[in-house]
């Protein structure tokens, strides 16, 4: 589904992302791990054409993301609060996103119903603008907005970082569920090795812009990763 062909992005002489060839197939849940500054977020930004590549290209379903806007129709992403329109109420934001993807209010409401346990009553009918919600709750809004778009691929940057433990568990369940029911492709980055080995089918290890390991998830993966990160 996504082809990364010789992509490179440098900042001030250093390559933040430098990947020769990588494919992400439909239906995979791919986890991106690496130390800080390894290039995970930059790679996501390149996939979403938010950053101009210095060389190479990224193809989504065969089309270059930088020249064609078709990928927007089936791609949903949440990288940071900069993706939220924080002066809207959560409902307004959900309906706005839904409209952009030709979902009616009723359809959006249906999806939101499945999110009720995840929201724990703090988001819908809260009488607040998104900017007044806590960071964790803002994150929940972002994730829900992604799912509402009914995409074929979801990209999340460090989704476990801001969630409380029970929400983390719910998120893992939700991601697995989406993949099973809808064959969704999911791209997540995380520092949380436990969660990422639990939910992902494939793990890419990035270091200084390069992908140095491409592991198929198995029982040993967690050990392998921990060995890498051990000092």
């Amino acid at each position, binding site marked *: 589904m996504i082809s990364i062909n010789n992509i490179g992005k440098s900042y001030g002489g250093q390559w933040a992302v430098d990947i020769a060839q990588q494919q992400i197939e439909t239906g995979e849940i791919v986890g991106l791990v690496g130390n800080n500054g390894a290039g995970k977020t930059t790679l996501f930004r390149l996939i979403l*054409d938010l*950053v101009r590549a210095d060389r190479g290209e990224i193809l989504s379903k065969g089309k270059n993301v930088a020249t064609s*806007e078709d990928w*927007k129709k089936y791609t949903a992403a949440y990288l940071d609060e*900069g993706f939220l329109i924080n*002066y*809207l109420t959560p409902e*307004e934001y959900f309906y706005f*996103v839904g409209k952009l993807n030709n979902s009616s209010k009723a359809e959006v409401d249906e999806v939101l119903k499945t999110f009720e346990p995840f929201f724990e009553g703090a988001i819908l009918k809260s009488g607040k603008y998104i900017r007044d919600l806590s960071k964790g709750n803002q994150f929940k809004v972002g994730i829900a907005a992604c799912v509402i778009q009914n995409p074929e691929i979801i990209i999340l940057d460090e989704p476990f970082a801001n969630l409380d433990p029970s929400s983390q568990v719910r998120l893992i369940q939700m991601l697995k569920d989406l993949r099973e029911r809808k064959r969704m492709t999911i791209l997540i980055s995380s520092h949380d090795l436990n969660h990422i080995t639990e939910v992902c089918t494939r793990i890419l290890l990035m270091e200084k812009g390069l992908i140095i390991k491409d592991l198929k998830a198995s029982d040993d993966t967690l050990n392998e990763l921990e060995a890498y990160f051990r000092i």
Partner: protein
Amino acid sequence: MIFTLLSHQWKGFWRASDAGKNIAIQIFMGFLMLYLLASAIAVGLMLPKLLMQVFPGQNIITVFCGLILYYFAFDIILRFMLQELPTMVVQPYLVQNISRKQIVNFLNLRSLVSFFNLIPIILFVPFVVSEIGVTYGPLISLGFVLTIFSLFIFNHFLILFIKRITIVNVLWLVGFFVVVLAFIALDYFGGFSIRHFSSVLFNRLLTTPLLCIVAIALAIASFYNNRAYLLRNFYLEEMTKSEGQKSSVDYTWLNRFGEVGDLIALDLKLILRNKRPRSAVLYSGILLFYGFFFFKTKVLDKGVLANAMLGGIFTTGYLFINYGQFLFAWQGNYFDGLMASNIQLKTYIKGKLMLLTAFSTVALLLTLPYGLLSWKIIPIEIAAYFFNIGIHSMVCIYFATRNYKAIDISKTSRFTFKGSGPAQYLYVLLIFFIGMVLYMPVSFLLGAWAAVIAVGTVGLISFLLRDWWIDILSKEMAIRKHRILEGFREK
């Protein structure tokens, strides 16, 4: 400490993402300032002779005394329009070992280094030294110099204070204008003569130079007032958080425009729910009154329509100046999300164009009452309206694609809000230039009315061809998108 902060500001200027634009503006302003400086020096040195020519037979010192407060009043208005608030990103310093007093003092003192404070010195000191010093002695001339100096410092901090407080509460702005207009009216209609008042005051000063202490006290009071205000409001955003349930709003009347309607609704909510854009839009309302400068009935009767043409362009396009220039920057906080969402660039640009059109339409309706001054104004305004929606809007969006600095609408920080400044006026001059390029040749060849019709028709045709424009602008946008995103991320 001051040197460190100064060096930070210096680096910040050169390393900003919009440094190029700032440098260009500064150079232009630099030339302008040099010119004004030279003129001021000339006037300052020639003041005695000038006064003797303009007011023959009167004691030039008395005349001088009368004029000082006139300049003072003029200075207030000029500063209000052009003086920029000194800005600084304060947050990084708050947790360091720098006291708030130091930061506030730095900001205030740094702001004093301004062109506006140089001019009165250059204009008045030569006269004071040469005439008053000679006639009345050095002590008195010293008193004069101190008084004049203090008066302008008073002005300086007064305007800063007013500009800051109007960010929070627009009513202050209204109050300020009411007071200023009242003084002008009183002076014009003879109720209260500024000149007389000035004469009396400064003549007293001639005899009792110690009265300069009053002025110095005023200046110090103004400085401390400013300082106290800043110190009190160091807690920035927390101050204006309003309680109360927020409800979801749906603009159903925009639904028939589809996606474009959604984008316009988003912009409307942005203006209504965020202090900065809301202030910018309300604040711009003052610009509607500038029409009085342009629509002079005497000139219109003579058949010279160029002024009114410019006036029409200015008043029906007034929102473009303060809001339109930063079209994308207002959404800077979530621009990443917008660009990654399922909105085609073309739709986005179209939404912005429609928003500008709506602004212009509202402005047109608001300025129709000018027709009471002269019926000629109405067709001119309509022509200007077409110019604005057809040509000015495209230029505006084009400039917006070159703006790489986001505006953080959630921050109403008194420390980082620049307010309107010279850059806006340069933009207006550019738009006027474009308008005149269309108007002048036709007016020369075929007469004023033909020129008005020409401007309006070109504007209308351009608007009808908007899809073509949207194509070009979205291509521009696609090229600049990454640069804009990078700039916006730098908050």
